[in-house]
């Protein structure tokens, strides 16, 4: 299917997952990601896959754990409150060294919050959410076309590093329609799943998937090994997009939908003679620290734009060792920042240059 189609972000997640070889989807409805579940319910039976609407988010994530244990590519999705419910299962998947793809189309919080777009699950996605020493790879697309390519990457990265990958979107990305192409998925070279609990055919010892370790020294050793793998991910997989960064005195930084709004603001600021640029992290974990360090060479200040009370701003400060002031412009609760708001904040900062 190489023609262009007009697709919603949520539908693109589903079609791309199928193209990437996902044949097991375990869902539970919640606005604003329900179209993904509905899409999978319609498509999976037609291609011999399995769609199952679980009795809860908790059941759905544990079904992913089960399918993944058996070596299948499996996916679940939800929106903010539902992801909180999945927290325990996500930790178990990480602790069992299983690949999995989890989609969070964020809405306003905390609590039941609201249904409008938000980015206030950044901490939850990048710093934990579940318990224990672990990381998720967190991918943050900013267009429907990039949703397609990052969904492909999500399945490959999960298999390559045997860890759960989260696609972190928001209500805007999930709901908006854009023309996209679904290219053929050419997989990376991936290791055999020799650990999977598929049939032994009497030829090997049985595999056991487990996250419980009786002896603390054994658990410590496993955690050390896992963190060696995380170090490899940090070294190899950090990704970002830079726009007009070469001479940028004010580096605006935003991910996902707010990066699109910020880009409009950067163009407007350039037209007014302010040397603004945009640094958009594509991976939120690993965070592209080197890109920030290098942007700090020309930058006099940074401005993070988020649909939250300010969460990614902490990673920006850490990435540049607080060498430059990092300002914040954000809306929360389902409100969306306008280019005008970003421009006004940027002009206020640039007055001190």
């Amino acid at each position, binding site marked *: 299917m190489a023609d262009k189609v*007009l697709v919603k972000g949520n539908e693109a997640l589903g079609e791309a997952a199928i193209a990437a070889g996902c044949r097991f989807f375990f869902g539970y409805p919640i*606005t604003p990601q329900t179209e993904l579940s509905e899409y999978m319910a*319609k498509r999976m039976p037609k291609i011999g896959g399995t769609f199952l609407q679980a009795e809860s988010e908790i059941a759905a994530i544990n079904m992913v754990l089960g399918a993944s244990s058996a070596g299948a590519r499996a996916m679940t999705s939800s929106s903010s409150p539902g992801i909180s419910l999945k927290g325990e299962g996500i930790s178990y998947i990480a602790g069992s060294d299983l690949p999995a793809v989890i989609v969070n189309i964020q809405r306003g919080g905390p609590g039941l919050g609201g249904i409008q777009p938000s980015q206030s699950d950044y901490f939850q996605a990048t710093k934990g959410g579940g318990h224990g020493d672990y990381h998720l790879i967190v991918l943050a697309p900013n267009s429907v076309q990039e949703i397609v390519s990052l969904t492909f990457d999500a399945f490959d990265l999960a298999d390559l590093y045997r860890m759960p990958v989260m696609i972190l979107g928001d*209500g805007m990305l999930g709901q908006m*329609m854009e*023309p996209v192409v679904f290219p053929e998925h050419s997989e990376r070279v991936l290791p055999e799943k020799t650990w999977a609990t598929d049939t032994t055919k009497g030829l090997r010892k049985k595999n056991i998937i487990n996250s419980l370790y009786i002896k603390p020294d054994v658990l410590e050793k496993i955690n050390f090994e896992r963190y060696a793998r995380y170090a490899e991910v940090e070294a190899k997989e950090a990704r970002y997009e830079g726009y007009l960064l070469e001479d940028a005195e004010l580096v605006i930084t935003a991910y996902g939908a707010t990066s699109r709004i910020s880009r409009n603001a950067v163009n407007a600021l350039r037209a007014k003679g302010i040397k603004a640029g945009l640094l958009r992290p594509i991976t939120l974990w690993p965070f592209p620290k080197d890109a920030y360090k290098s942007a700090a060479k020309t930058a006099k200040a940074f401005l993070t734009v988020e649909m939250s009370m300010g969460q990614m701003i902490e990673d920006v400060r850490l990435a540049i060792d607080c060498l430059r002031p990092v300002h914040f412009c954000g809306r929360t609760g389902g409100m*969306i920042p306008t280019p005008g708001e970003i421009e006004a904040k940027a002009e206020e900062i640039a007055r001190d240059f």
Partner: protein
Amino acid sequence: MYFPQKRITIYAGHYGSGKTNLAVNHALALRRTGKRVKILDLDIVNPYFRTQDSEALFREEGIELIASEFAGTNVDIPAVPAAAQSAFDDRETPVIIDVGGDDAGALALGRYQKTIREENNYDMLLVINRFRPLARMPEEAAEIARSIEWASRVPFTGIAANSNLGGETDAETILSSEGYTLEVARLLGLPVVYRAARADLATALRHRLERIQPVEITGKVWF
């Protein structure tokens, strides 16, 4: 103007086929001929894109909007506005009805099917876009149409062709969709009531396709 002129015009079809935009354009066109017009938002499925998004425009133009008091808020309960009944009771005023996507959305329309059929002064248009996944084949679009009729118990009377690729739509996008449109029409035995096109494209296509209806892009734009 190719918009139907009966007392009631209902827009139904696949998710994201452009029902809301055509309904809004239809209401605006009627209003601009000096008529009193109501628009009824019956979409109880998707709380994100609704006729409500054009509220300011309606106020400015004097179009009466009937929508759930929860539309555009954080409450996503599938509520039909109580005032919806007035659109059927008041048989003097033209009303444009924007129905939710697929059979799931059309279910709400079933609530009013008796009065619609009894008054018998309606058109129900099937909105189609061949660039939408799950509706790319004429057979798929026809199947969606049948499931909508089954859920709403209101028969379609025509087709509003709306094949587009959003901002990337050009004349070729619309021309290359003609075969699809005619095949859906043939499968369902329905006339093509109009082919929607952005104003600049409508001018270019005027002599190449019949019943080209110029439309504006209204509603929610985020970027």
